[in-house]
């Protein structure tokens, strides 16, 4: 009996640890978006507007993130397995197809029209306005449609 309760306790702790780990990842991401200015769609559009008053900030954000993740992933993968989960869950698909490229193109139009990709849109809930709410609702609707037609 004590063996069972001990095991249940361990499983429960694991759940709490996963939640804490997920929260920390989200917090770091949200802090990164806010500090880099990416929660401001005007700054994002400023980067995409190469023919206007070009704002290079997003290039530094993406560069800093990719280099950090590139180095960090190597350290993490060298360890062989994640700390609180059984295995790394990585995409296995290798081929380029119409769904990937067509989806990326549709997303590009939406990103260019609004200055919002999903991260900053959701991270900005604290400054919610009616237009942002409209964007979020439509984005969720888009996810449901994509899931339905996939």
């Amino acid at each position, binding site marked *: 009996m004590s063996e069972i309760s001990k095991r249940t306790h361990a499983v429960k702790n694991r759940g709490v640890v996963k939640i804490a780990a*997920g929260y920390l990842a*989200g917090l770091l991401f949200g802090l990164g*978006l806010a500090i*880099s200015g990416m929660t401001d769609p005007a700054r994002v559009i400023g980067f995409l507007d190469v023919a206007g008053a070009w704002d290079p*900030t997003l290039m530094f*954000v993406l*560069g800093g993130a990719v280099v950090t993740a590139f180095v960090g992933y190597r350290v993490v993968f060298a360890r062989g397995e994640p700390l609180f989960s059984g295995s790394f869950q990585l995409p296995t698909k290798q081929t380029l197809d119409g769904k990937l490229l067509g989806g990326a193109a549709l997303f590009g139009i939406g990103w260019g029209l609004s200055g919002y990709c999903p991260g900053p849109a959701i991270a900005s809930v604290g400054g919610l306005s009616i237009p942002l709410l409209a*964007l979020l609702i439509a984005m*969720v609707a888009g996810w449901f449609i994509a899931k339905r037609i996939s």
Partner: protein
Amino acid sequence: MDWMASLQGLVGGVLIGLSAVWLMGALGRIAGISGIIGNLITQRPQGDSAWRLAFLVGLISGPLLVMALGGGLGNVADAPGSVIGAPAGGVPLMLVAGLLVGLGTGLGSGCTSGHGVCGLARLSTRSMAATGVFLLVAIATVYVTHHVIGGGA
């Protein structure tokens, strides 16, 4: 060039990279927002919602924490003291844009974080292609809406 904004961009980018590394090291997951939140909402993998929900709460609390600590960083559109900029367009434009962002990232299996950060860091061919396409299409979209139609929408 605004060096302060560039420096803040770099610092923020490193934090986003650390988030991706931590999520992979701790839970073995790609830090793609459209995947994490999209799957949380559309309920694909059953029984895997708790950490996704926690991630969502963390994501929203990040900017709020920066604002509580003084804020004013990196924002060009809104009032000082805020780090969250408001959408420049109205409701109809945001509905169209939001639908395209949701549909596109859903079909294309990722957004700027999943493909643009995590995918590029893994040297994934699919992510390189997707990132190239959405960046170029977004640049073309801004060119058309800002310089061809109207001029400054």
